[in-house]
C-alpha cells in the first residue's frame, strides 16, 4: 500500500506541472495584461514598460512560470492589478464554492444513490424505465438552461426561494444552486449505481446471503450496496474537482460570489494573476480528489492494491 501511495504521488507531479504550465501559456495568449491595466485608453509606452518590468513581464515565459511556481509554494499567489492580494480573494471565494459543492455532492449521494438502488433492483419495471428516461433528459438539458428555468419557476413565479444568493451565501440559500450544479452528475450517479446494482444482484455472494435467510434490507445494504458502490465512489470523488471548476455557470446564474465569479471577473478584466492563481488551486484540488479516490479505491477493492 505504501508503495502504491508513493507511486501515485509521483505520478501527480508531472500532471500538476503540465496542467499549470498549460494554463499559464493559455493566459499568456490571453493578451497583454498591461493593456488591461490602463482601462480603455492606450497605455503610455513608458508607463507600460515600467509596469511590465515591475510585474516581471519582460522576462521570457518559462522564467515567469518558474518564478510564479516558486512563489506559489511559499503561499504567495501574487497581487491582482487592483492591489488586492489573490490569496485574499481566494479566502472569500473558496469557502462559498466549497459550500456549493458540498450541497451538490449531498444531493448526488442522497438522490442519486437512492434512485440507482431503487431502479437497479427493479430492472425493467416502469419505475426503472421512467427514471432512466428522466436521467437521459436531465443529462441533455445543459446546466445553464436548468438553472435559468428553476430560478424562474421557484424563485420568481412561485417565490419559494430567493432568486439570487447573498454575498455571505449560507447553506440554506445554496440549496437550489447546489441542486442545479448537481443535476447532470446526479443523473450519472443514478445510472452508474443502477447498472452496478443490477450486475451484482446476480452474483454468488448475494445468492448466498439470501440463502442464509438474511432479511432483504440486510442483503441490500450489507452485501449488495457495499460492493456496488465502488465505482460510484470513484465517480463522486472525481466529480468534486469537476464541480468546483464547473460551478462558473451556476454561480453566474444565481449571482454567487464564489470561485467561478472571481474567475469570470478576472478573465473579463484580463487579470492574469487572479486567473492563474485560481486555476492552479482548482487543478490542485482536482488532482488531490483523484488521488484520494484512487487510494480509497485501493482500500475498498483489494484487487487494485495488489495489482
Amino acid at each position, binding site marked *: 500500500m505504501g508503495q502504491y501511495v508513493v507511486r501515485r504521488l509521483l*505520478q501527480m507531479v*508531472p*500532471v*500538476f506541472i*503540465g*496542467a499549470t504550465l*498549460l*494554463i499559464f501559456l*493559455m*493566459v499568456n*495568449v*490571453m*493578451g497583454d495584461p498591461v493593456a488591461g491595466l490602463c482601462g480603455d485608453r492606450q497605455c503610455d509606452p513608458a508607463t507600460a514598460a515600467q509596469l511590465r518590468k515591475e510585474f516581471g513581464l519582460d522576462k521570457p515565459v518559462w522564467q515567469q512560470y518558474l518564478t510564479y511556481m516558486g512563489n506559489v509554494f511559499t503561499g504567495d499567489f501574487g497581487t491582482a492589478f487592483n492591489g488586492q492580494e489573490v490569496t485574499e480573494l481566494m479566502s472569500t471565494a473558496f469557502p462559498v464554492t466549497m459550500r456549493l459543492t458540498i450541497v451538490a455532492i449531498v444531493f448526488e449521494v442522497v438522490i442519486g444513490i437512492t434512485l440507482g438502488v431503487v431502479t437497479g433492483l427493479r430492472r425493467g419495471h416502469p419505475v426503472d424505465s421512467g427514471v432512466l428516461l428522466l436521467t*437521459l*433528459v436531465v*443529462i*441533455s*438539458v*445543459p*446546466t*445553464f*438552461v436548468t438553472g*435559468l*428555468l428553476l*430560478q*424562474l419557476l421557484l424563485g*420568481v413565479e412561485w417565490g419559494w426561494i430567493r432568486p439570487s444568493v447573498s454575498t455571505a451565501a449560507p447553506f440554506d440559500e445554496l440549496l437550489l444552486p447546489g441542486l442545479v450544479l448537481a443535476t447532470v452528475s446526479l443523473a*450519472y450517479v443514478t*445510472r*452508474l449505481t*443502477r*447498472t*452496478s446494482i443490477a*450486475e451484482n444482484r446476480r452474483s454468488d455472494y448475494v445468492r448466498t446471503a439470501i440463502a442464509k435467510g438474511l432479511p432483504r434490507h440486510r442483503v441490500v445494504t450489507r452485501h449488495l450496496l457495499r460492493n456496488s458502490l465502488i*465505482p460510484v465512489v*470513484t*465517480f463522486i470523488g*472525481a*466529480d468534486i*474537482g*469537476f464541480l*468546483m*471548476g*464547473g460551478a*462558473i*455557470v451556476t454561480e*453566474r*446564474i444565481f449571482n454567487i460570489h464564489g470561485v467561478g465569479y472571481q*474567475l*469570470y471577473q478576472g*478573465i*473579463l478584466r484580463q487579470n492574469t494573476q487572479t*486567473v492563474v492563481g485560481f*486555476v492552479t488551486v*482548482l*487543478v490542485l484540488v*482536482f*488532482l488531490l480528489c483523484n488521488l484520494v479516490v484512487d487510494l480509497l479505491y485501493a482500500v475498498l477493492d483489494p484487487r487494485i492494491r495488489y495489482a
Partner: protein
Amino acid sequence: MPDQPFPSEGAIAGSGAGGAMNLAAGEAATLDRPPSGLPGGPESTGPEGAAPSAASAERPRSLWSDAWRDLRRNPVFVVSALIILFLLFISLWPSAIASGSPLKCDLAKAQQGSAPGHPFGYDGQGCDVYTRTVYGARTSVMVGVCATLGVAVLGSVLGALAGFFGGLWDSFLSRITDIFFAIPVVLGGLVLLSVVTSNSVWPVIGFIVLLGWPQISRIARGAVITARQNDYVQAARALGASNSRVLLRHIAPNAVAPVIVVATIALGTYIALEATLSYLGVGLKPPSVSWGIDISAASPYIRNAPHALLWPSGALALTVLAFIMLGDAVRDALDPKLR
C-alpha cells in the same frame, strides 16, 4: 473457420457501467474493466485473418450488420435518428421551413407573444423567435459534427499509435492525457476563447478539438491494446504483414466500435458546450445566430418573455438528447454482452 465468429478480446467502451455515458470517468472504467467478448467477425479482418469464404452460403453476419439489424428495430434509435435527420435538413436548408431572415427584427414588437405567422413570438430585440431557433440549428450541428470529426480523427490516431507501439510514446501520451483532464473545460474555454474576436464557429471547434481529443485517445488506446493481443493479429504477423497492414486491416476494424459510441455521445455534449460557451459570452457572438446566444440574451427578461428563452432551450435540449440517445442505442447494439 467455424460459422460462429470466434470470440476476440475487445472491450466496448464503458460497456457495463453506463461508463460511456459518463464522459468524465468512463475512460477509467474502460481501462480497468476486464475485456469482454466482442465477435470480431473473421470476414471483416481481411484475407489473411479470415478463411477463404468457402462456406459462403452461410456467411456469419458481421458485428456491423448484426448491430444494424438491432438498431432498425429499436424505437429509441429510430426516433433519435429521425430527429437528427430533421436537424441536418434544417441546418442545410433553414429557409425551407422558415421564410424570414433571423436578423430582421422590429423593436416595436419586442417581447411580444406569438402572433399569426410567428408561432414562437418575438424576443427582446423584436426578432422572430421561430426563425432564429430554426437558423440556430446550423451552428449547433456544425460545431457538433466538425468538433466530433476532429476529436475522433485526432484522438483515435494518437491513441491507436500509443496502444499499438506502446513504449515511450505511450507513456508520454498518457501523461499528456492526464494533464488535459486536469483542466476544467468551461474554464479553459473562458480563458482561451476570451481572446478570440473572430465571430466564426472555427475557434470554438478548434478549442473543443484541443480539449476533447484525450478522451477519445484513451478509448482508442484501450481498444487497440485489447485487439492487439488477438490470435488473428498474431496470425497476420506470422504471415509477414507489416505494421501498417496489421493496424489498418486487422486491428482498426475491431477497435473502432467503442470510438464510434463515445464520439456519438460526445457530439451531443459538444453541442451543449458550444451553447454554454456562447451563454458565457465567449463562444459565438452576435450577429451569429446560436441557441446559446439567444438563451443568454433572453435570460435578463425571462420574467416578461419566457417564450424567448424556452423555445431555443427546448431545441437545444432536444438536439443534445437525440444525439445522446443515438449513442446509447448504438452502444447497446454494438455490445454483444447484451445479445
